[in-house]
């Protein structure tokens, strides 16, 4: 493996790690799904670099596309599909204020 490939691998590993931490930290569910698919995308590229094109194709099709699609659709089914995290908080505050007034 050449030196350039090693550097690309290192960069990919850093991207995947930061995306994985983002999944844990981010409040918005859809953002978490997107970050999880970034982890899968990095993994697919790592497989391609390690000369495993079959596994890379599976990871790209299933990990990046299908699993994040199913997660996003399940989010919508469960009523957690909210694009703006801040908006949810403000709605909760408004709800509180209304309760206090009533």
């Amino acid at each position, binding site marked *: 493996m050449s030196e350039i490939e090693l550097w690309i691998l290192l960069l990919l590993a850093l991207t995947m790690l930061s995306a994985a931490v983002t999944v844990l930290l981010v409040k918005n569910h859809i953002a978490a799904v997107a970050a999880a698919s970034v982890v899968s995308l990095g993994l697919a590229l790592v497989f391609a670099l390690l000369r495993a*094109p*079959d596994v*890379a*194709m*599976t990871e790209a*099709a*299933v990990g990046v*596309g*299908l699993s994040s*699609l*199913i997660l996003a*659709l*399940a989010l*919508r*089914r*469960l*009523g957690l*599909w909210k694009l703006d995290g801040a908006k949810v908080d403000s709605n909760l505050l408004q709800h509180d204020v209304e309760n206090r007034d009533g």
Partner: protein
Amino acid sequence: MANLTGLLFAGGLGFMLLSIASGLDFGAPPMLVGTEIQAHAPQQTGAANIVTSVVLGYRAIDTLGELSILFAAAVSAGLVLGRRHTTAGTQTKGGFILQNGGSLLFPLMMTIGFYIIFHGHLTPGGGFQGGVILAAAFFLPLLARPGAKLHHKSLSLIEGFAGASFVLIGLLAMLEGKAFLQPLMIQDTLGQLVSAGTLPLLYLAVGLKVGAELASLLSRLIQTEAPQ
């Protein structure tokens, strides 16, 4: 307490993985099966792609189990999440770009999916990857026009037929006096589109089954909405 247990579990798992990984030489497989398969696979199965000859030749029953697991997972996901709510509202149509892009991409994605399935024994790819791309091709127009409905009956017919033909090809090998799912080798040139005996047929069955299964699961999921 729960945090402590979780920390303990994570630490133990990390220790186990590290102790296993420290005993292995990177890039030096401890098993000799791989070199044997690499030496004999092209003559024994006729597939230019050695991964395919492992997936459908040497480990075909594993693939059958994988298909059953996928089927069970799709059925249970559809059962739990796929029931349409009576109060679900109608969805708005996609915009101009999404609608026309979906129509434009549909034939291209179908072509790529079938290309990957049919060339599974020659180049990287195969039934699982191609099937997922087929499912995505059917999902894209559905995303643009949520009112449109897939024909679930024909999808499940395709799925059942594909799954049955996978097993039937396996039984055909038994009729010839070989083991279940043993590839029926027909003498032909390595690397041709029509080669490797029954392996392309098996991959076609896998691809159709995976594609139909996932397309029907995704369409069921998109037709449901959260209770308001």
